[in-house]
């Protein structure tokens, strides 16, 4: 099970966080700070896995963004890297050549996509088509609704 996912920039700014376990806010902040520090301090030649407390951190850098997942001991590290990659692909497909700014300004979409892909720390839909379709469907619904709502009422 993935315990949590963090997205942060090379400067250490947190861009997106998703927690699949319940923790008090203070604890989350502390963990985030600690992990960002650990990951940023590692050089590119090093492996993408870090043992951290009783968890394993799996991270990968895409352009200026680090994607970091904390997984449990018996989870598969390599596949977690691919979870990250699939998520990036989904973002890419949705935004069309995704960049950090897309995630900053459309963070709610990034969250919805993540929700569609992972639920409760487990992969829900590994098929790119289905996941993207689910997101597009809800977008359609939303857009039609918005259009509907924006019409001046008489």
């Amino acid at each position, binding site marked *: 099970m993935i315990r949590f996912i963090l997205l942060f920039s090379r400067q250490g700014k947190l861009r997106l966080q998703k927690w699949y376990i319940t923790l008090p806010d203070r604890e989350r902040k502390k963990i985030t700070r600690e992990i960002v520090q650990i990951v940023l301090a590692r050089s590119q*030649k*090093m*492996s993408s896995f870090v043992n951290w407390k009783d968890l394993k951190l799996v991270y990968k850098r895409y352009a200026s963004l680090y994607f970091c997942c904390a997984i449990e001991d018996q989870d598969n590290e*390599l596949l977690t890297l691919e979870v990250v990659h699939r998520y990036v692909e989904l973002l890419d497909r949705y935004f069309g050549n995704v960049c950090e700014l897309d995630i900053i300004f459309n963070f709610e979409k990034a969250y919805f996509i993540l929700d569609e892909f992972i639920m409760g720390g487990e992969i829900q839909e590994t098929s790119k088509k289905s996941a993207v379709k*689910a997101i597009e469907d809800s977008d359609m619904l939303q857009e039609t609704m918005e259009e509907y709502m924006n019409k001046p009422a008489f």
Partner: protein
Amino acid sequence: MEAVNLLSSNRYTEKQIGYLFISVLVNSNSELIRLINNAIKNDLASRNPTFMGLALHCIANVGSREMAEAFAGEIPKILVAGDTMDSVKQSAALCLLRLYRTSPDFVPMGDWTSRVVHLLNDQHLGVVTAATSLITTLAQKNPEEFKTSVSLAVSRLSRIVTSASTDLQDYTYYFVPAPWLSVKLLRLLQCYPPPEDAAVRGRLTECLETILNKAQEPPKSKKVQHSNAKNAVLFEAISLIIHHDSEPNLLVRACNQLGQFLQHRETNLRYLALESMCTLASSEFSHEAVKTHIETVINALKTERDVSVRQRAVDLLYAMCDRSNAQQIVAEMLNYLETADYSIREEIVLKVAILAEKYAVDYTWYVDTILNLIRIAGDYVSEEVWYRVIQIVINRDDVQGYAAKTVFEALQAPACHENLVKVGGYILGEFGNLIAGDPRSSPLIQFNLLHSKFHLCSVPTRALLLSTYIKFVNLFPEIKTTIQDVLRSDSQLKNADVELQQRAVEYLRLSTIASTDILATVLEEMPPFPERESSILAKLKKKKGPGTVTDLEEIKKERNSDVNGGTESTPVNASTVSTPSPSADLLGLGAAPLTSAAPPPSSTGSLLVDVFSDSASVVAPLAPGSEDNFASPDLASSEVVSEEPADTVHDADELIHKFVCKNNGVLFENQLLQIGLKSEFRQNLGRMFIFYGNKTSTQFLNFTPTLICSDELQSSLNLQTKPVDPTVDGGAQVQQVVNIECISDFMEAPILNIQFRYGGTFQNISVKLPITLNKFFQPTEMASQDFFQRWKQLSNPQQEMQNIFKAKHPMDTEITKAKIIGFGSALLEEVDPNPANFVGAGIIHTKTTQIGCLLRLEPNLQAQMYRLTLRTSKETVSQRLCELLSEQF
């Protein structure tokens, strides 16, 4: 309320916002929860897949017990209903999984379970993936209920593995068929032993073989995603093979495959290969196969650039070690230790010590190895390690002479580590006579050699050396006078440290009064230690398991040995019951707590008492080693407190702040008691004198001050003290010395708890002891240019801490300067362009590190405000210093 209205809306946007709102802001407000639950229930029943999806996501996101209580019954029905949409089934499976994880008691097992198992046969691979996750978790807790899933999982896996890469359409990931599902199925199978049914078993073996075969095929794509996904499945298959541990053929093949990865150019693969080989090494079938890779692993240790990979290599060497290769592996590890990263040195030291002991064919090799260990990485050799050497040497007659000779030779080195002096002192004290025949190591030479190290050592080591000297008096009567002269010298008899002084006095007395017979009995050789599990092993386990709750008993014992000046060679081990020899007790080397608890039964015991009948104080302070007030918080929980809770806790932080910039003064005062403090600090060490003054004319009884450190604090601050006299006469003052060592930076302050009986009522006072981080400050003078250069180097946002606050005292420049100097840092003039500002610099000394600190204080007279900025190389230090200093102005 609005949010609940939004939830019940039929419009998607409104509903979505409503759900978003409550997943973020929901709390257990009972009124609202009921309404929210109602809305969710409606959506679940709505048969609109989008709405159901939203509701399920919401439940999974919140995942609280209330949610579980309300919906755990509902969701399984949705999951197994025939007409549920596939996407909803996926959400329902994972949602149920989430609820099961938080509150398994609300998820009833029932007839739905068998139908869930059949989801493994579902057409839709997404549903199978989600269901497998659920089943795996459920099967871990209820293996019987889900036993049928094994054969289904095997057949599903076999269908995936043998499928062509295009068969699964969108579930093929970079030419690898359904990697997620394969891995999950393999994980599910790891919940069970190898299948009993021969057909199923054969099919599974076939699958695993196919996976191993595929690893040999040329890659279908150069993309890293392809190889990652493929290898992910492979590693999971290997985990399953190791878990079953029944097919030698597969195990060896797995091992060979991993061997190939050891030299792969992807760091990730090398890392994982080392990691899984570690588990492979423990299987009897593959242990030999793993051993063939020893050269590669040793090479990895030498050439890998990533610390964590090297760490895995060390782990693997440790795992593959046996009698045949122990010498080589230990030698390599020792080699590596010289250049190893500081963070893993201690662990390597422990591992070397364990391997050397476990596989020692000849104990001279063992002694050599450990001495090497101390030479190379003395700082990382923990007490357990050198205790253990001594135990082994004492228990084995055949190495005693060799050990004495070797330590004697090792001690010849001009600079040797203190741990070596400890081991040397102990061993020569016991077995020095075995090498005394050689004129090159005559008694006098041995003694002079040890004594030449004496002045460079810390107090505990010196105490141990004094014990060695008295043992020498017995072993070599011819140098008795030399030793007596040393003991008699002012630096011993009037030593500022009570422990040393006491030992010197006692030993001197003992050597003058006692006859040779008595000396020989009292200072007899240590009896063999009972065989027991190595305490080092326990320590390694402790290191390995982070966040594990340490045994309370163990902590207590550990503290005990601290208090006794580190000379107690009984290792930290719960089962420690060594033979209570009174002679050993006298030296504080053996089982002190035991003899103090019961009167010494043997005849030697009474002899001992005779010797000291004229100086009662001699036995008394040594004996209650276990009763020491610092070590026994259980005193506080005795019934006295509970019946008379006249508690007053004065642990307000004001007290601390009063002492931040000064070292002496009155800490606490009420109508009965006054507590004064006097303290001095140098680098990471300090000493605090606590004066307890009885202000009344009546005696205080059962007067027990106790120092309480929280667990967190204990690891960063080492406090040692001695008990004080339990009665304090009216008007009298008693003094207690606390020796302080700062191991690493810390936030809180220790608590001083004082309990005593005054005229029939029980008094209980707690005050915070003002030992704060800034006490370990050493001022550093630097020029303006240096200052700004360093300031810039510490520009990481975590390193800086800033606080803006209102002045609490008149803003006087001179007083402020005095306070900054009192705080411990140097006050730097002419650095800041604005002369009104104050700038300081210093170094915080802890045992583990030194932390450079820069500070800047900018007063604003109009607003009566200050802005304080601290920059240090460590975030917690910046934070703590800023907190402390902000309160001063």
